[in-house]
């Protein structure tokens, strides 16, 4: 009886020893050297793997920092300067300050500003809807409002506003990871600087409509009509109009807000500014016009047009003409 136990223990021990020797030899022979700094850098990174830095995840970014000669192009948008200082300490380089960016939605065509012309009842996915047709309103550049951007946001920085039907960016949560920019089939998101001051003021054109003014305005009350008024009033030459669409270069813009007052359709948004002091004399007149138009537009939809009596004056003719 004891001998059986003894033999069993000896056999088990010798198998274990043999396996240990093989494992040891393998670990020495096939050892891959890895910079211990990579682990260290990775431990200070936020571990969100969002890809905002341009690398597929936090570890590839850590690897890149250990190999880099300077940190000019390497910046963790989630951790910001705090994390970058720690990273810089570990790899022995100086961190380079990057401006804090935020995603902005370049469309303000809310359900109120854009009359619906059709109704979509396919699967609720923006990319899919965009491959089928131009959208429920007359504007083919605007937001489809199905919230694919909300689905891909890992930081809870986006939600759909139930009243306007547009996604809203949460300034505090947005890390400028680029996920919404990449997923939006209408290319409506852009990363822009969060803006100067305690309140982070910024100005941008919230429209991507490249149609001529008349067509754009017909589809949406707050569309950029390419009238060039903002270009004329801008003293910093920050605004360019291309394909009937204005774009404000954030590197040149000084947030003077002149264009915002000038814009006849309110397509230029000023975010976090104090309320307007000077009242534009055109405002009252413009608002009245807008109200009247909106009232008229509410009645129009596809089905109404379909039900209009159709001319049946022509007779059916079977002869080739």
């Amino acid at each position, binding site marked *: 009886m004891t001998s059986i136990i003894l033999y069993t223990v000896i056999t088990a021990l010798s198998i274990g020893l043999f396996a240990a020797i093989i494992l040891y030899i393998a670990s020495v022979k096939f050892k891959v050297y890895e910079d211990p700094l990579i682990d260290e850098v990775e431990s200070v990174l936020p571990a969100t793997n969002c890809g905002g830095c341009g690398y597929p995840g936090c570890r590839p970014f850590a690897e890149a920092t250990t190999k880099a000669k300077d940190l000019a192009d390497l910046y963790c948008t989630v951790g910001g300067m705090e994390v970058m200082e720690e990273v810089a300490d570990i790899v022995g380089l100086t961190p380079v300050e990057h401006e804090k960016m935020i995603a902005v939605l370049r469309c303000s065509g809310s359900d109120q500003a854009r009359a619906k*012309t*059709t109704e979509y009842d*396919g699967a609720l996915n923006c990319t899919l809807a965009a491959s*089928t047709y131009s959208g429920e309103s007359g504007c083919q550049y605007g937001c489809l409002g199905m919230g694919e951007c909300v689905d891909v946001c890992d930081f809870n920085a986006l939600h759909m506003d139930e009243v306007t039907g547009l996604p809203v960016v949460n300034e505090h949560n947005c890390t400028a990871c680029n996920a919404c920019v990449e997923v939006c089939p209408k290319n409506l998101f852009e990363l822009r600087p969060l803006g100067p001051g305690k309140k982070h003021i910024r100005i941008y054109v919230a429209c991507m409509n490249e149609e001529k003014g008349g067509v754009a305005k017909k589809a949406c009350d707050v569309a950029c009509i390419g009238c060039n008024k903002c270009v004329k009033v801008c003293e910093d030459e920050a605004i360019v109009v291309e394909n009937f669409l204005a774009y404000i270069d954030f590197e040149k813009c000084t947030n003077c807000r002149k264009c915002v007052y000038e814009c006849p359709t309110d397509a230029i948004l000023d975010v976090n500014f104090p309320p307007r002091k000077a009242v534009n004399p055109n405002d009252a007149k413009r608002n009245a016009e807008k109200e009247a138009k909106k009232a008229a537009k509410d009645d129009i939809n596809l089905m109404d047009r379909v039900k209009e009596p159709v001319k049946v004056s*022509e*007779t059916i*003719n079977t*002869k*080739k003409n």
Partner: protein
Amino acid sequence: MLKTFPKGGVHPADNKLSANVPIVYPEMLDNETYIIPVSQHLGKPAKVVVKRNDKVKVGTLIAEGDGFISANIHASVSGTVTKIDHQMDSSGYRRMAVSIRKTNDDWEEDIDRSEELVEEINFTAKEIIEKVKKAGVVGLGGATFPSYVKLMVPEGSKAEVLIVNGVECEPYLTADHRLMLEKGEELIIGIRILMKALEVDRAIIGIENNKEDAIEYLKDLCKNNTQISVEGLQVKYPQGGEKQLISALLKKEVPSGKIPVSIGAVVHNVGTVYSVYEAVQKNRPLIDRVVTVTGDSLAHPANYMARIGIPLNRLVALSGGFPEDTGKIISGGPMMGKALNSVDVPITKGTSGILLVADKEAKRRADYDACIRCVACVDVCPAGLEPYLLMTLGEKRLWERANDEDNMECIECGSCSYVCPSERPLLDYIRLSKTNILALKKEQLI
């Protein structure tokens, strides 16, 4: 037992309301504006070669094919070019189009407008291909692929048989059916032209068995011709798919990722064949096509020989106007057609039909049930895929996995969505994966 394709398929009610209505030639009204989009085909949009206020005749080239896969666009009416601008078309987007206001009825001089049948084919294969290209002929079955490209057999392959697609498996549509009955003689000459261009000595016309009169008529026409045969097929959707028709007629499968000519088959739709006849024998470019205008509540469902660019409204008006209960307007058939978001769109080369669906039938459910793993979708998939799995992968945005599960083999026939008891939008998500896989492939990430 009649032939059919082996895998999957469904049997929707065929509702061919306009099968007995002869093709109508709509009267051309003066001062009516025809909108002719420059992108009516698969491939690059054509380049506009006319200017505003130019006078054009019927058959004048207004946009030239740009690149290998592209097609010429011709004026379908004579008059004045009033606008070259973005216009809404059946793609659902505003795209470049030439608007022509009809003022008179001048035709380009080299077009033969007589009704006479030209039987003799006096052209070489090369000349035929050149003429087909010049006339801007594209596949009229729906995919609108430039036809001349299909006639140029790539090196290493050899065409052995020409298959003429007269299946018309989509419910409601009768355009091809009427064309076969009314233009049978022209069709047979068209087939001979294509056989000469492809250098093949065998052609099969595949027609589903619900069009017995067309089968009889064409059989009668080719009884003295040993090279062309007419084959009646079982009624099953989607038999009109290129790969399904080949496997039904030849019992051969086109390998994954290959084109049909790799197994010696070239497929052309009957509409295309008729256009080829017109292009080669009569010098008449592709300026009109047969369009079925139909719908359960429509007063007079009918088939029209419609000029390209005629407003959709006009054809519906000829059929008695939009019924009160119109809920959805579909370009094409109910299975693969596409809902339109405007009633102001023109008829283009790809419009095989206009279907007006009643309000109560048009709406899809806003929410759908969970998949119960009944595999009805797997049973009916003619491509042999697992749609329930592909949809889940699409919902979870796992494009690479979807690609591994052969998502790209989907022919988008919609049979899976048709049979799903939970009414899940299977095809929608398969299409979504397709879009994303194509984008990834373009960046060479998979």
